[in-house]
């Protein structure tokens, strides 16, 4: 699936999207750490279909998945 990246995460990845396979958000975190150097030291949240998800959530590959660094609006 195509994963959307934003802000500091996109900067570190050098890309706005990444093509990854993951059956859950836990697996997604592992895959992201393999592809983005230094990700382990960063805080980020995962949004599935435009909602933040906590804990481990299964993914079927059809969702809109995004990796979000801390918010800074306002």
């Amino acid at each position: 699936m195509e994963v959307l990246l934003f802000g500091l995460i996109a900067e570190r990845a050098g890309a706005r999207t990444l093509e990854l396979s993951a059956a859950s958000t836990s697996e997604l975190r592992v895959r992201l750490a393999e592809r983005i150097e230094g990700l382990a030291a960063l805080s980020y949240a995962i949004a599935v279909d435009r909602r933040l998800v906590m804990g481990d959530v299964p993914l079927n590959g059809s969702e809109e998945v995004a990796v979000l660094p801390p918010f800074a609006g306002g």
Partner: protein
Amino acid sequence: MSGTKPHRVRDIFVEGPIDAAFVGTSIAKHATRTDIGAHEIFLGQVRADAIEGRTVEALEYSAYREMAMERMTAIREEAFAMWPSMTCLHVHHSLGTIKAGELCFMVFASAPHRAAAREAVAWVVDRVKAELPIFGKEILSDATHVWKVNRSVDPQGRPTDL
């Protein structure tokens, strides 16, 4: 001017700074709504903060627009439910480069009486800062940058002050 349509998804984002004259124009548009007695407006302006001997020259904002608009729609609906007397609510946020001294954020509520407008503005400002996926890079005077983090959001992106 959309108190009757809180459910519509509306784009809150503007490219570049919010023009002060635009705020004046927004205010003027309410003159036909003679049920309004109070307007409350919050404006965020980019501060030239000092960071370890360097100065913030600009903020560069980006956003996950689709999610931000969905969250904003939910926040609007909740605000109109909490302050049913509110006549209208306008929210705008800048994207792109906003220099120190320029405006980047506006929350503007109107109501027959001031308590509803004042409370709604404070609440919406908090919610936008905590819940909208907006990202900001502070551009420093030595051409380096620092990613901004709202203090009201914990490292996992969860709001902490709601």
